[in-house]
C-alpha cells in the first residue's frame, strides 16, 4: 500500500514502478514482562494484524503465529499558560512467534553504569539540599547562620 501519487501515463514512459510502502514497524522495549517468544512493536496506525504478519513473514522470514494490536491514545500535556494538547495516537502490536523461537531485546546503549551513577549523585544532591532547607524551615527568608 502506498499513498504516494502514482505518475500519470505518458507514452514511452517507463513501466510500472514499485514504491516503498508507507508501512513502518518500530521494535520497542516491552512495556511489561512478556513471554520469551513475544515481541512488541509500534506500527503505523493504518496497518492491520494481517499486514504486520505479512511484513514480518515476507521480509524477515519470521515464524509469526499470532498478532494482536491495540490503539494507544497519545499522552496529554498542558503547554505553559495555554491549552491541553495531545500527542499522536500509536498502534501497538504484540507478535507471538513460534514457541521455540526466543527473542531478547538488545542493549542498545551498552551498560547503564554511567546513567545509574548520574542518577545516584543527583539524588544525593537533592537530599542534601532538602536537609539544608529543612533546617531553616521555621525561619524562612533569614540567612542560615542566623540562630535566633
Amino acid at each position, binding site marked *: 500500500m502506498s499513498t504516494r501519487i502514482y505518475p500519470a501515463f505518458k507514452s514511452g514512459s517507463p513501466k510500472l514502478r514499485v514504491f516503498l510502502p508507507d508501512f513502518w514497524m518500530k521494535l520497542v522495549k516491552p*512495556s*511489561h*514482562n*512478556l*513471554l520469551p*517468544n*513475544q515481541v512488541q512493536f509500534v506500527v503505523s496506525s493504518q496497518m492491520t494484524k494481517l499486514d504486520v*504478519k505479512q511484513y514480518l513473514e515476507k521480509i524477515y522470514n519470521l*515464524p*509469526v*503465529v*499470532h498478532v*494482536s494490536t491495540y490503539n494507544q491514545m497519545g499522552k*496529554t500535556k*498542558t503547554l505553559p499558560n495555554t491549552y*491541553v494538547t495531545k500527542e499522536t495516537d500509536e498502534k501497538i502490536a504484540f507478535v*507471538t512467534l*513460534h*514457541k521455540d523461537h526466543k527473542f531478547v531485546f538488545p542493549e542498545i546503549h551498552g551498560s547503564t553504569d554511567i546513567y545509574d551513577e548520574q542518577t545516584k549523585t543527583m539524588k544525593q544532591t537533592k537530599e542534601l539540599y532538602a536537609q539544608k532547607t529543612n533546617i531553616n524551615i521555621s525561619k524562612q527568608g533569614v540567612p542560615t547562620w542566623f540562630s535566633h
Partner: protein
Amino acid sequence: MAFKLSVANEATKKSLISQCRRISSYFQPSESEYESKPVYPPILDLSYEARKERKIEEIAQNITKLGTVEEKLIELNAPKYYGWWALNLYERVISYNALPFTQFATRTCLVNELPSIYNDVDAIALKSLPIIKDKLNDLLLQEFEYVSPRTNRKGETKSEATESDRRSRNFIPLLNRLLVNQLSQHNEDLQTTEVDYEPRLEAFWSLGGIEPGKILKNIREKNEKFHKGKADDPIDRPIQYYGSPRLSLRHNKPLPQLLDRNSGLSVEGTVPSWNLDPRVMGYKYKFCRAVNVPGFWPGTETQHGYMSYLSRGYLKRRDEELSISDHQDALHVQAILHSFAWTLSQACYLGFGPYTELTYPLSTQTIITDGQNYSFSAYQLNTCALYNKHSGDANPHRNVCFSTDEMKLYDIIENGQVKGFNDDVLKSLIKFYLIKPTEPQVNMRPYLSPELYIGNVSDTERRQKTEKNFKFLVSNRPNHILKDEIHQWEKIYKIDHDTRPMEKKIRFFETGDPAPGMKRLDDFNPKYVPKHLRNPPKRSRRGRLPVQPSIKL
C-alpha cells in the same frame, strides 16, 4: 462507702447515675488471683506481609465457618459489589501455547496415558466390544453418511466449525444412549445416572503467585515504608471459567480415586512455573461475579460428576487465527480446564471451595470428540485452594490429569462403509462407562452444618433472603445501579490536568470517596419499609445490642 453527689440540678444527677451504671461492671472475685504459669497472648509478626497474609487467612476462615453451601458461595462475593476483576477463561477460546499457564493455574501435572484403574475392566470391555461395534457402525453411517448437511436457501453450509459442532451435538447424545443401553448390564450404576445436555458450567478460584500489574507496582515503589525492595512480590488473581460440555452424566455416588492423594504423582508431579500476568496469553480481565455452578443447583441428589463429553469444533476456527496448528496442546488445555472447573464447582457444593482445602480427592472423566477423533482424559482433584501461598511450595498437593493423545475411531466413511475402524478407541470408550462409582469411607461434608443447604434452614427470614440473593448473584444479571465510571473528558480535564478548578466537586473521584470497585456487597441502602410494617418495629436506640454480621443482605 457510698459517695454523695453534690450536684444541685436533679436532672444532671439522674443522667450521671445512669451513665455510671452503664460503664460499671460487677466485681467477680476469682479463687486464685494469680495463675501458676503465666499465659501470654501469641507473639505475632507485625510486618506488612504477615498482616496481609493473616487478613486473607481470616477471610478464608470466615467462608469455611459458614454452615450452608449457598452462604459460602455468597460470601465469596462479599468484598465486591460490582464483581471481581477476574481473568475470564472460556472453554472454546484457547491461546497458542497455553499448556504451561493452564497447568500452573490449575496446579495440574499432566500424564500422557490413562491410569491403571482402567486395566481392571479390560476383560469386560473386550467381551462387549463386538456387539457395540456393530451398532456404532450403523450410528456413524446414520449421522455422518446419510444425513445431508444443513444449508441455507442458496445451498451454502455454515463455517466448518459450526458444522462440526452441530454434528457432534447430534451424535454425542446418541452415542451415550447406545453405550448406556449396552453396558448397563455390566455396570448397574449406569441405570441411575442422570444426563444433562449442554449444562452450564462455571467455576471461580483465586490464583496466587502472579506478578503485580503496572499500577500496583508504581504504588509499591512510591510507598517505601512497606514495600522497599518488594515491588515485584506476587499477588492473587481471581479466575472465572465459563464452559458448557455437550453432555454430562452424574450419579449419587462419587467416582473412585484414581491414585493416592498423599503419595506418588499427587505430591511429586511437576507443575510448570509461571509468574507472568495471564494477559500476555491474550486472555482478558472483566468484572464478573464469583460463580460456581456445575450444571445443577445445590441440593440435587445426583451431585457427583461421572463423565462429560466436549466438542472440538472450535479448533477449526482457531486454525484460521493461528498459523500453526497445535491441536494436541489445545485439547489437553481444554480437558484440564474443564475437569478442574467441574470438580471444583462440585467441591463447592460439598462445602469446600477456592478458600477451603479438600480433605479427600474428587475425580472425573472427560471425552473430547467430534465423532471421528477422540481424546480421553481422567482427572483427579487433590487441591482446590490455590490462593496466596497455596499456589507455591507451601501446598504439598498437585492435581493430576491423565490424558491421551487424539485418536481416530475410523479413517473415512465411503460408499456406505466405515473404513479403518480402530477397536482400541472403542475399547477405551467402553472402559469409561465401566468404572463403578463408590461411596468413600470419609466424612464427605466436614465443613457443612447438618442442614447442608439453605432450603433446610428453619429460620424463614434467613432462608428467604439468602435464597433470593444467591439466585440473583449466580444469574450473572447486572446490578440495578450500574457502576460509576470516569468519562474520558473527566480523565483529561479534571484528573490529569486541573482545568476546571471552580466547578463543584461532586463526583466520586473528586470528593475523596472510595472507588466504586471497593464497594462491598452489603453496602447499599435497604429497601424502604414503612414504620408500622417493620418487624420488629423501630424502637429507640437505647439498650440495643451491637449486632454486626459479616454480611447483612
